[in-house]
């Protein structure tokens, strides 16, 4: 109950600024679009109407149609579902893996810690696009592969923060007190340590959502991610780009959707970070 109140108070602080409020509004709109895409979309996103290709915006097709006559608005809305599901599942995976590895690194012996940190460095040093090409070459392009690639490249990010958090708390008196009471290691980590390190990790996750959205769009644009019939923002831009000489509308509209969503999430993430810890970020 208290946790809920604390979350609400943080939200209120985050949306106090104009940028925070704008970011939060876009965040909510995209989430709603993603959740209720079938209801919001005016057409079946995959319904072809070749006679009606490159139609300009009208009452029937709010944003016009693409090169196969599919309704662009409906495809964009469904694109939000793809973007959000990829972003959220990839970040959830990276957050979980990073937290576990970070806690392990902080508690393991020097050698174990070094192994994990080197692993982080190797992953972080590897160009993610080259990694993506390699993985796609082996497994073929699919949504699952995009999620796996993004989760892999994001894990060190969360792992390092988790480790740093644990290191600052590891010898905190309240954890010592639990040890003196006889609490098991699992109890100390899950009941007492975890709730105290999650704040910065959640903020980091919210700031990584726009990054993942652009990575997904980028991979899909290059044909390494979501496969064509599915409406991802990246494939929409790719389709529009191919037929740019026929109509400029699809590529501009899809790019705007991607840019707006990314901007909204970034603003919201930054406002959230400032609300959770006003010290970080300000001096930049």
């Amino acid at each position, binding site marked *: 109950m*208290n946790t809920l109140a604390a979350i609400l108070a943080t939200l209120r602080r985050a949306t106090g600024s104009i940028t925070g409020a704008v970011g939060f509004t876009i965040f909510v709109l995209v989430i709603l679009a993603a959740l209720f895409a079938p209801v919001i979309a005016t057409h079946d996103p995959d319904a072809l109407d070749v006679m009606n290709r490159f139609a300009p915006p009208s009452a029937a097709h709010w944003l016009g149609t693409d090169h196969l006559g599919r309704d662009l608005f409906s495809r964009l809305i469904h694109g939000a579902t793809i973007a959000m599901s990829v972003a959220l599942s990839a970040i959830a995976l990276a957050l979980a893996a990073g937290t576990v590895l970070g806690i392990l690194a902080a508690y393991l012996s020097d050698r174990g810690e070094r192994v994990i940190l080197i692993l982080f460095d190797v992953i972080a040093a590897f160009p993610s696009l080259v990694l993506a090409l390699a993985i796609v070459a082996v497994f073929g392009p699919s949504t699952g592969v995009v999620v796996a690639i993004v989760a892999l490249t994001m894990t060190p990010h969360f792992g390092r923060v988790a480790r740093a958090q644990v290191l600052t708390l590891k010898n905190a008196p*309240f954890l*010592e*007190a*639990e040890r*003196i*009471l006889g*609490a098991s290691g699992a109890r100390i980590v899950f009941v*007492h340590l975890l*709730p105290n390190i999650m704040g910065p990790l959640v903020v980091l996750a919210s700031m990584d959502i726009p990054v993942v959205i652009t990575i997904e769009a980028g991979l899909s644009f290059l044909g390494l991610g979501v496969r064509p019939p599915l409406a991802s923002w990246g494939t929409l831009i790719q389709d529009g780009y191919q037929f740019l000489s026929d109509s400029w509308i699809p590529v501009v509209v899809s790019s705007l959707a991607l840019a707006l969503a990314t901007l909204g999430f970034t603003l919201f993430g930054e406002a959230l970070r400032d609300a959770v810890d006003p010290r970080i970020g300000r001096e930049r």
Partner: protein
Amino acid sequence: MTDPAAPPLVSFEDVSVVFGGRVHALDHVDLTIARGEVLGLVGESGSGKTTLCRTLIGLTPLTTGWIRIGGAPLIETMAADPLGFRRRVQMLLQDAVASLSPRLTIGRTLEEPIAIHGLPREAARRRLDGLLARLGLPRDIVTKFPHQISGGQARRVGVARALMVEPDLIVADEPTAGLDVSVQGELLNLLMDLRRDLGLTYLLVSHNLNVIRRVTDRTAVMYLGQIVETAPTRDLFDRPAHPYAAALVSTNPAIDPKRRRRPIVLGGEIPSVVDLPSGCRFHTRCPVAQPRCAVDVPAEREVGPGRRVRCHFPFSLAPTAAADALLVAADAATAAAATP
């Protein structure tokens, strides 16, 4: 108060703790704590008081030596029945507020012992209610968070948490640190009442010599990881035998003007625990050091009833002899330093 013939509840036998092969935190410590006794532990910061506490609660492993609790080696008790060991020995941490989990209510923190030790719910709850009342904590404190309560309350919550498991021995690290004087007094009275009612034994660490003097039966003085003097508290304050103990005691202002003496100010800093002085640990700062002190390590020896001293030339136990001798020596040293 305590029967000297009875086997001690706790005994340290030649305990040493060396960190990283070179930091000598504890050096050949021998110490006993009788059942029902309040043993005080004093010494400068860095003298090993906290390490000694941590070895006793099993958080810092010994490099050599044994600690026995109730006759059984601590290390075996911990291995055989870790929770049982925790139910015998509890500790009050120095920073009371920080020792409470910041995201848990006081109520949930106090229920931790019940969950960890699987105490029977009904009885434990009744015990908790009784303890809250006994410790003078308001009932609604269980709904509060650590940052919403006072330092004195946080102390008492810590005491309640420790007492939930009905320990025999409580290690209290600076229990009065950060409390104002009236609250200090209340807390000490409370701790002593609990000792009487529950038959507790305390190891009490403090910088505050008045606290030590008021509540402890015996006192051990630590210097650079060694125990330099152990004596009944009253004797130690009246007639310290070790020069370091004498200097320490002399800095504690007496209320009675007739007993007030000049404080003996020791020169220099406490030496590093990495690069220990040869011979007697204290000879670099001792006002009455002799050539022998720089060479021979003094052994601990009995100098009176219940008194053990680690010094080649302990003061005679005549009242004030120690302080006078020290003052003369200290003055001589100052004069020597003043003349080029």
